[in-house]
């Protein structure tokens, strides 16, 4: 049984869709169940995902030139890896534009700390329960979130300096 099937069987209610494009097993799950699914991935012996290898987000605003409409604007993408079983799994969580917030996974993997800060910095998605959610690559005075699709790549920022 592959990790994808295992999670799908256990959380059939919470899985929105699955695919294995080019062999990458992927699950799209409901945001409310993220914590329980993550805990299950980490603590089930036959899955044993001890690495949260990567965490990022994708903005689907005007995806494919507007031809494809996604229900939710953002997706958070988690890449898990198990050292023991040498398998990988991608979990995606849709996030609404109006209230971009998901649960933080900092309690389960230490690597989530900086990755979640980066997602907050670049996409403006908040992580509930994160101990220190502040910008990481940009400075605090930076206006907007750079990797959102409605942020023009050549947009200028106001100069910052000592407060007078």
């Amino acid at each position, binding site marked *: 049984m592959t990790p994808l099937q295992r999670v799908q069987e256990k959380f059939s209610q919470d899985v929105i869709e699955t695919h294995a494009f080019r062999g990458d097993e992927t699950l799209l799950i409901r945001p409310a169940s993220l914590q329980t699914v993550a805990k299950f991935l980490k603590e089930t012996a036959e899955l044993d995902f001890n690495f949260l290898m990567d965490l990022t987000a994708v903005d689907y605003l005007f995806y494919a030139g507007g031809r494809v409409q996604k229900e939710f604007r953002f997706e958070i993408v988690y890449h898990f890896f198990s050292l023991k079983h040498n398998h990988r799994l991608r979990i995606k969580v849709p996030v609404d534009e109006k209230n971009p917030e998901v649960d933080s996974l900092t309690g389960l993997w230490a690597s989530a700390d*900086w990755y979640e800060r980066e997602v907050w910095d670049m996409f403006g998605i908040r992580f509930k329960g994160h101990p220190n959610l502040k910008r990481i*690559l940009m400075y605090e005075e930076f206006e907007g979130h750079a990797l959102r699709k409605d942020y023009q790549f050549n947009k200028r920022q106001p100069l910052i300096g000592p407060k007078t």
Partner: protein
Amino acid sequence: MATQTRSMLLNVGPSHPAMHGVIRLIMELDGEKIKGVDVEIGYLHRAFEKMCETVMYTQCFPYTDRLNYVSPLINNVGFALTVEKLLGIDIPERAKYIRVIMSEISRVTDHLTCIGATAMELGAMTVFLYMIKAREYLYELVEEITGARLTISYVRIGGVKADLTEGFADRAFQKIAEVRKVLIEADELLTRNRIFFDRMKNVGVISKEDAISHGITGPFLRSTGVAYDVRKANPYLIYERLDFEVPTGTTGDNLDRYFVRMAEMEQSLRMIEQCFQQIPDGAISGELTGDIMPAAEMVDRAKMGKTQGFMASEVDLDPTLQGGTEKFHDAINATNKDVVLPAKENTYGNIEGLMNHFKLVMYGHGIHPPMGEAYFPTEGANGELGFYIVSDGRDHPWRVRVHPPCFPIMAALPKCLIGDVMADLVPTFGSINMIAGELDR
């Protein structure tokens, strides 16, 4: 009156002589002991991920050169493999071997730089100079094939830019022998050096559990005793055919990381030697026979429409560009015409080739991977270098995400530093091998 004590805040960086790379550490010191560290990164942020969304797939390669600028070839290979995974195409055997040879050369240059710089910061200037000398030998090899030392942009989607030159294997063996000599010298100068040993041993320690929880990979993880290497766990290209070991440490301190890197360089050199034994023959650049035509003449004649005889003659081009000519094209490039540029004789000589060329380079055309997403892990010099690309079926990537191996290591830096003294920052930071280019992107 009771004595009051309080800790001192010390700011190190963003520009400090002992910091190779711009990063700021705000340290809380109790005397000389480090009680807390706040790491601030982002000083070299150049919007790699954002810029990749604005250009076509092939145009991302110059950006990837600038991620880890000590081993840019590995970044090129990682990006190309991810796009090829999205497209679902395979590349010729010879190109796979060339990619592995170039990746392993890059890995050695990266490790040489890391150990050399660490040694220099501990006062061993000689080792630094020796290692930079060895790196220079390897850069000469890279330069011979790619035409550049750093910003090489050598790998192409579906293949590589140029084939190996004539006699390259012999020169590579010579340089490998030279590098081995330097490694022995450096080993003699450092490994039993009391000063170096004491500064590295039991300094910057991280436990296996912490390293895994932080998602650390590469030599840093292996120094804690976990034998995880992407080349063994998820072999890509031709790594499963090569015989190599994954060196590991035991304690996860700076000394172990030094040993792991030293052992890994030897393994990489072994891999290069094996590749030269296994690599399938191709036309070797340099030996042109028959009717030779300079490239400039071909272009001039093509402009006037005098294209007869193009396919019969051989085009003389610089060796670093020769992958583009008919003779070398198919040995190192995939056959998919919707991905790989046609040979130059076709581009200039007939309308099909010209159209094919235009369809790949013109704005709005280019390579169109199917709608979907793919993640491809490769073993970078610092750990797992993964590219995650989302395609919307158009010629621009919808999203390019790099999993930079330095990033989780820097997040764990406070764990390595707290409890050590201030002076230990220098060797610990050196053994982390932070590359600001891939950390900040």
